[in-house]
């Protein structure tokens, strides 16, 4: 090859490169947007999954919000949790919020195989679509529909729908981002505090039903429905249970997870992550009750 053409090529490219570099430099100066350097520091600490679990558009969005916020208690990264938030608080020189770790809880016992169907849904497999047309396949108009919008919404693979056991939340994987609760058109899923850690297990109790129908109607539609009888509220020593609209609700802030209510519920609508305590009085515990409780608790896991 001719040496000249090589030289010309090199020269042209060099000149072009220099000219473009100069242009780029000035453009970047001209259009520079000032950003708090702390935002970059905060973002470096975040997991970088851009899951949106915090409610902001990706990790950068959260970092911006954190840098701006005066109080960190209401926002935070659900994935990184307390350790990450502590580091971020140190960077920003603010107090870290002391939010309790939470977990998604599906408050319905219905599953594909156990629900008492009165009709057969055959439309698109989406809870949102089914819910806009029909109450449910069962007589319970409040129940889990079982088409898996929560499973699709979960970015952490923490929710599964088992044909026999219904919605199962994997406590290890769940980061309590709330995407499933938002996706559920029946508002069956609630974010509840994980609860007190005892012997490597989080203790929590919840009413596994959201049916607002009157007792007999609810019972006809589902064997494990809350019938709003109020027995649990009476037995609770901490006034944590309220019955409203024919359905009981356990306030996690007041509940001490003693499990007394578990034995009281006539329909086994109250569930816990631990076995029910033995009944206080020496009355003989029915054999089936003892055998059933632990298995139900296991289900919830």
């Amino acid at each position, binding site marked *: 090859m001719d040496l000249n053409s090589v030289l010309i090529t090199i020269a042209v490219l060099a000149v072009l490169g220099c000219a473009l570099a100069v242009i780029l430099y000035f453009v970047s100066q001209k259009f520079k947007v000032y950003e708090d350097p702390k935002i970059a520091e905060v973002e470096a600490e975040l997991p970088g999954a851009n899951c949106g679990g915090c409610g902001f558009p990706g990790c950068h969005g959260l970092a911006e919000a954190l840098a701006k916020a005066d109080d960190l208690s209401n926002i935070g990264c659900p994935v990184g949790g307390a350790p990450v938030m502590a580091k971020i608080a140190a960077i920003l020189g603010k107090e870290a919020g002391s939010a309790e770790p939470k977990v998604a809880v599906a408050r319905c016992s219905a599953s594909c195989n156990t629900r008492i169907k*009165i*009709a057969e849904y*055959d*439309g*698109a497999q*989406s809870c*949102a*679509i089914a819910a*806009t*047309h*029909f*109450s*449910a396949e069962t007589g319970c*108009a409040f129940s889990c529909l079982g088409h898996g919008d929560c499973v699709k919404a979960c970015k952490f693979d923490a929710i599964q729908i088992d044909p026999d056991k219904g919605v199962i939340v994997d406590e290890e994987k769940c980061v309590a981002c709330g995407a499933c609760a938002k996706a559920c058109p029946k508002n069956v899923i609630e974010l509840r505090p994980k609860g007190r850690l005892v012997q490597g297990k989080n203790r929590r109790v919840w009413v596994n039903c959201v049916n607002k129908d009157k007792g007999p109607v609810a019972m006809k539609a589902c064997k494990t429905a809350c019938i709003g009888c109020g027995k649990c509220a009476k037995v609770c020593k901490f006034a944590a249970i309220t019955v409203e609209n024919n359905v009981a609700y356990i306030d996690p802030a007041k509940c001490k997870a003693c499990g007394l209510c578990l034995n009281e519920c006539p329909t086994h609508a109250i569930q816990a992550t631990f076995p029910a305590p033995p009944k206080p009085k020496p009355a003989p515990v029915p054999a089936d009750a003892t055998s059933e409780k632990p298995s139900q608790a296991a289900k919830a896991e």
Partner: protein
Amino acid sequence: MLKTFKIGGIHPDENKLSAASPIQVLPVPAEVKIPLAQHIGAPAQPCVEVGAKVKVGTLIAKAGGFVSANVHSSVSGTVKKIEEFVDANGMKKMAIVITVEGDEWEESIDRSTDIVRDIKLEPKEIIAKVSEMGLVGMGGATFPTHVKLAVPDGQKCEALVINGVECEPYLTSDHRAMLERPEEILMGVKILMKALQIDKAYIGIENNKPDAIAKLTELAKNYPGVTVQPLKLKYPQGGEKQLIDACMDRQVPSGKLPINVGAVVQNVGTALAVYEAVQKNKPLIERIVCVTGKPLAKPSNFLVRIGTPVSACIEAAGGMPEDCGKVIGGGPMMGRAMMHTDVPVIKGTSGILLMNKKESKRPEIANCIRCAKCVNVCPMGLEPYLLSKLSAKEMWDEAQEHNIMDCIECGSCNFTCPSNRPLLDYVRLGKGKVGAILRAKAAAAKAAAEKK
């Protein structure tokens, strides 16, 4: 020459099984359940107490607003209770339950079959009468009729379009009404024209009903300004916008109402009810219901009192067949599947369609092969494949940009999709979400404007 709408459309099997079966009067049941919300808009407010004696035609619930409709008793008897019932979709609705005792009518109702030709009322009075008698669109949409007749200021109505298309497969109630009660329908059209103060009306009828076209064309000669317009067979010709396009060659722009192009559309069933309300003083207490379907022994057309259980209608048509997998309120394209048949016939129940088990299940879903057939058949010129994908991905802004709100939910896309994809299911979901977002934005803008 046969006219039709210009964009898209499909040709489902007609299956007009009950076309030759004359309208029979269904016996009054022992008890009726009359829902308070049988129309689009606010539910009516009950104005009778439990235990009250009512006659046929007694007002039992008053309209709960401008876009609402009065509800009248369809039987004579005692109000047993006013309570919630589970409707065909499994939702809870309020209804007035009346125990039937005899069949005594309000005296003001003219029960003779003579045609009353002299229209005594003035336009304003006609609209008031229509409102008083609780009339709603009888085609299935159940939009209160008086609202449609009240032309807003600044708008001008030029023509009335009467929908005698009955483009839904299976259904024949309008067809039978046109054959058996053509004079009353034409009088109803005349009354509607007077109410709107116009002198032009089109009655659009598809050419699969040549007998109805012939009969109405013949009789319409005595009604100046009324044109019977035969239309080419194509679904969804009965859609309001499609029908105006077919009859008047005018296309209602996106987001606008028929009145924007000078048209008011009413169903033939509504025209009939208007005649009865204005000339005979009869409230909307009964309607023609087509009970049909392949598994049914005797597909028939019945004149049914509002509040009669659907199960009674099916019983009269030969009873619930063993091979029934689905019961639909309305036609197969736009009707709603029922969860149970213990629900009342309401003002909008144009048909009760039974499908056999095999027809009831949707075929298996395959991947979208991008064949563009949904795009070709969409009567609104939309891209259903894209809209359903945007909905599934919750991309509401993009869906709005692609005119998702223009969808008329006719189901042509689902019908034609070779992969059996639930396109309309997702488009409808998206339409609901985008509509909610738009309403929220409008409310926010209004609130902001009021603040200033």
